[in-house]
């Protein structure tokens, strides 16, 4: 008699031999996606007794099949969805048959949830595109199919659902199938099948239905069991993304990460993408013991034979099969945020384990998801798809998405809210020379400013020592930098110690001091920067001089109006104390006058609000 362990080992071996198919269901609202998945779970006997009991209770007053169950209740998990009868977010479901294991991503139909559909598609091998036999191919059917092709899903099954509601009419099915095939032809799916089903009644789900004798293809589940989708990722070029530097002590330095594609063996020569430095793999470490070879998908720790500079985000490859390494590329972008994307805005780009600031430098065209036609555009709205060029602040390692989704797919992140704004697929890298056509334009202030995605300007802060000028300017600079703008503060500290260290505090020296600062501010603004000048600048005449030097550059005078007694009480540098003691001469407010600006653009009351509040107000008024 076989022991239970032997039985189990046999059974485990069978489980192990089963392959895994990850697929998603998509299509328009009310096409019956959740009902279809509920049906698949029910038919594969995965609905358990307690679930079935609570389901029958909940199915009261709903549209049910012969089993007395509204199958969509099995998968519509969120309370809001049950109330509205729609599917908001991707739900992941698991079932298996004797031949295969399945992970299903049930994705939302409503247009505003297209981003969730893209989430489901990004890890799927195959997609079921559902259409309602009564309605045929809709806008959302086309949109989803286009996104499938963009995300790189290669296999599609068109599921013509609710075929019972059109009396199992062959002509209806064939018309819809033909229309969809014509639309999908340019999308380049590797396989495309069409199946007429009724998810509610179970027609053509597990086995061919007697109601559709005219249909000679496979029923849905047998089709899913048999279709070959796997790409052999191990046969592709070796890519290893360093996620985490593993350094338990001084004797061990390894690089932990996952093999995105290809294979690696001990003794292999590898190249580090960022430095182009070579090294040799000396160990492949796992807790289960060292390996001699590792393949795509494995999470391992590589030890190299020499000290080379490798950090998180680096990509290792074999020499001669290296990824591209560039700071400019063309990509297709799906926008997923209510706030539109504009060329010139700065975002964070994450690809693999690399995160870098990036800017959309050019919006080449938008693709109409209904007709696949291209049109010019100045922005990308929610759920739109566009082809763009992107420049990153420093070079990144990548492959074209078509060659490798894991090293060619990226997300864009908002620098302030940290929301995920969009997802992109890199088409190809651009060399600098291809992109910058110097002969077409003169390099001038506008060009430099556009590269930075901002309008250059000078913001001139004036006010007593201790009034809060520098604190406000600092907070504003931080906020601008977080938004991806390039700003710089000029203040007494960084000017008096260098450029103007030859100047004293006589009246002539003070005028020269301001003149130089105004000239430097103008040069910096001409270079495209937002310049924040924080100087006491007590005399009206000097401030007028600064404005004149700025010329046609936008100049904003901000008076930080804080009463002398408040400034003196703060005395952050102890200067008032020294001035009162006579240790400093000509100190503004004590023995030298401050001429309050007669006509400043803005006045901030430094005694009434915190610097952070004032900086926020200023940011709003300045309309950056």
């Amino acid at each position, binding site marked *: 008699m076989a022991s*239970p362990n032997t*039985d*189990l080992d046999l059974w*485990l071996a069978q489980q*192990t031999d089963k392959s895994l198919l990850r697929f998603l269901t998509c299509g328009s609202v009310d096409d019956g996606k959740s009902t279809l998945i509920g049906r698949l779970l029910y038919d594969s006997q995965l609905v*358990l*007794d*307690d679930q079935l009991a*609570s389901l029958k209770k909940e199915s009261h007053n709903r549209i049910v099949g012969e089993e007395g169950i509204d199958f969509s209740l099995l*998968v*519509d*998990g*969120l*309370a809001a969805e*049950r109330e509205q009868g729609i599917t*908001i*977010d991707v*739900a*992941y*479901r*698991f079932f298996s048959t004797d031949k295969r294991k399945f992970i299903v991503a049930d994705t939302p139909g409503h247009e505003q949830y297209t981003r*969730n559909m*893209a*989430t489901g598609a*990004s*890890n799927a091998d195959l997609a079921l595109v559902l259409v309602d036999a009564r309605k045929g191919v809709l806008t959302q059917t086309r949109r989803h199919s286009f996104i499938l092709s963009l*995300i790189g899903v290669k296999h599609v099954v068109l599921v013509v659902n609710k075929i019972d509601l059109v009396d199992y009419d062959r002509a209806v099915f064939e018309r819809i199938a033909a229309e969809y095939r014509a639309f999908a032809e340019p999308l380049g799916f590797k396989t495309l099948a069409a199946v007429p089903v009724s998810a509610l009644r179970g027609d053509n789900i597990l086995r061919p239905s007697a109601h559709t004798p005219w249909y000679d293809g496979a029923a849905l589940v047998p089709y899913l069991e048999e279709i070959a989708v*796997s790409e*052999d990722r*191990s*046969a592709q070029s070796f890519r290893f993304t360093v*996620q*985490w530097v*593993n*350094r338990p002590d001084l004797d061990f330095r*390894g690089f*932990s990460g*996952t093999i995105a594609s290809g*294979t690696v063996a001990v003794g292999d020569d590898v190249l580090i993408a960022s430095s182009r430095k070579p090294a040799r793999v000396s160990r492949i*470490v796992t*807790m289960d013991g060292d*390996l*001699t070879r590792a*393949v795509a*998908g*494995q*999470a391992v*720790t590589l030890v190299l034979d020499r000290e080379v500079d490798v950090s*998180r985000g680096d990509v290792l490859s074999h020499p001669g099969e290296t990824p591209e390494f560039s700071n400019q590329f063309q990509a297709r972008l799906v926008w*997923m945020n209510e706030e539109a994307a504009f060329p010139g805005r700065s975002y964070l780009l*994450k690809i693999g*384990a690399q995160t870098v600031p990036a800017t959309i430098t050019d919006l080449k065209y938008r693709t109409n998801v209904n007709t696949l036609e291209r049109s010019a555009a100045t922005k990308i709205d929610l759920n739109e798809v566009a082809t763009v060029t992107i420049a990153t602040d420093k070079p990144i390692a990548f492959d074209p998405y078509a060659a490798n989704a*894991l090293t060619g*797919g990226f*997300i864009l*992140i908002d620098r302030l809210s*940290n*929301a*995920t704004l969009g*997802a992109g697929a890199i088409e190809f890298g651009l060399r600098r020379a291809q992109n910058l056509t110097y002969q077409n334009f003169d390099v001038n202030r506008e060009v430099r400013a556009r590269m930075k995605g901002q309008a250059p300007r000078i913001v001139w802060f004036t006010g007593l020592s201790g009034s809060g000028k520098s604190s406000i300017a600092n907070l504003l600079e931080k906020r601008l930098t977080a938004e991806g703008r390039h700003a710089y503060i000029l203040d007494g500290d960084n000017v008096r110690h260098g450029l103007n260290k030859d100047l004293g505090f006589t009246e002539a020296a003070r005028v020269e001091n301001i003149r130089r600062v105004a000239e430097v501010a103008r040069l910096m603004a001409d270079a495209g920067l937002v310049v924040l000048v924080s100087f006491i600048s007590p005399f009206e005449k000097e401030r007028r001089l600064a404005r004149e030097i700025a010329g046609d550059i936008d100049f904003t005078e901000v008076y930080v109006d804080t009463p002398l007694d408040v400034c003196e009480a703060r005395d952050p540098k102890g200067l008032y104390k020294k001035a009162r003691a006579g240790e400093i001469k000509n100190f503004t407010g004590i023995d030298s006058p401050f001429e309050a600006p007669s006509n400043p653009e803005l006045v901030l009351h430094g005694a009434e609000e915190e610097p952070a509040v004032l900086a926020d107000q200023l940011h709003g008024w300045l309309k950056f």
Partner: protein
Amino acid sequence: MTQTRLTHLQALEAESIEILREVAASFERPVMMYSIGKDSSVLLHLARKAFYPSRIPFPLLHVDTTFKFREMIAFRDRTAEEYGFDLIRHTNQDGVRDGINPFDHGSSRYTDIMKTAALRQALNAGKYDAAIGGARRDEEKSRAKERIFSHRNASHAWDPKNQRPELWRTFNTRLNPGESMRVFPISNWTELDVWTYIYSENIPIVPLYFARPRPVVERSGTLIMVDDERLPLLPGERPREEVVRFRTLGCYPLTGAIRSDAADLPSIIMEMQASRTSEREGRLIDSDSVGSMEKKKQEGYF
């Protein structure tokens, strides 16, 4: 080795390891929730693998409601000693002071104070920006919709209508001050995957999962183990020895046992193959009302 494609379990293991490494590399103060159950045992095993030969670079946090099975606590302390990880134990002392228990205050209020509020306290006290948990998408309908990196606002609440898109394995790990992330590395595992992995990797689990004679009382069809003298017996009620085991572990007064002879892993896996009820049925907190888990999650329950 000529293998070029990973088995189903190897692929799941690698995916989980990648997620754990991403947490360690991206957050300043991660913590791993350790509930002592089988999913926690798997998570701990995966974390050891992810960072080997380094130690697990974050502490483990156990929220002790004071009503956990005694065998769970013993297992926890044994495991912490054997693997040498940093273990943080937290109990809601306000609840202890007020004598909060599931008998007098009801399961929902008790869970709210000793579990949900306690977890919030512990996460705030440790200023943790990422909390790793062992939830799986096959467990429950609202979990089936949660991201692997699941964003929480400053009051630990989940906004299911506004989840970040999550493409490929490119996780957006960025947070604003006060926000945090819950991370679920075994999202894509099923209960069967967990058991087969425990079997093939020989992972230690709490003995309560194995059938043994245990003192139980039966209440409205649920078998409750009399783990200590705090369980108030109803008039005429007397504990009796039955051969039972647990499919899921939590607070003993709120965790139903099942009658079973499955005393080792092979028998458990075989039994599960034949079983016709889902594992959370043994948890009394889920059946309060439809959508109760989602509501708890929005309030900050893990």
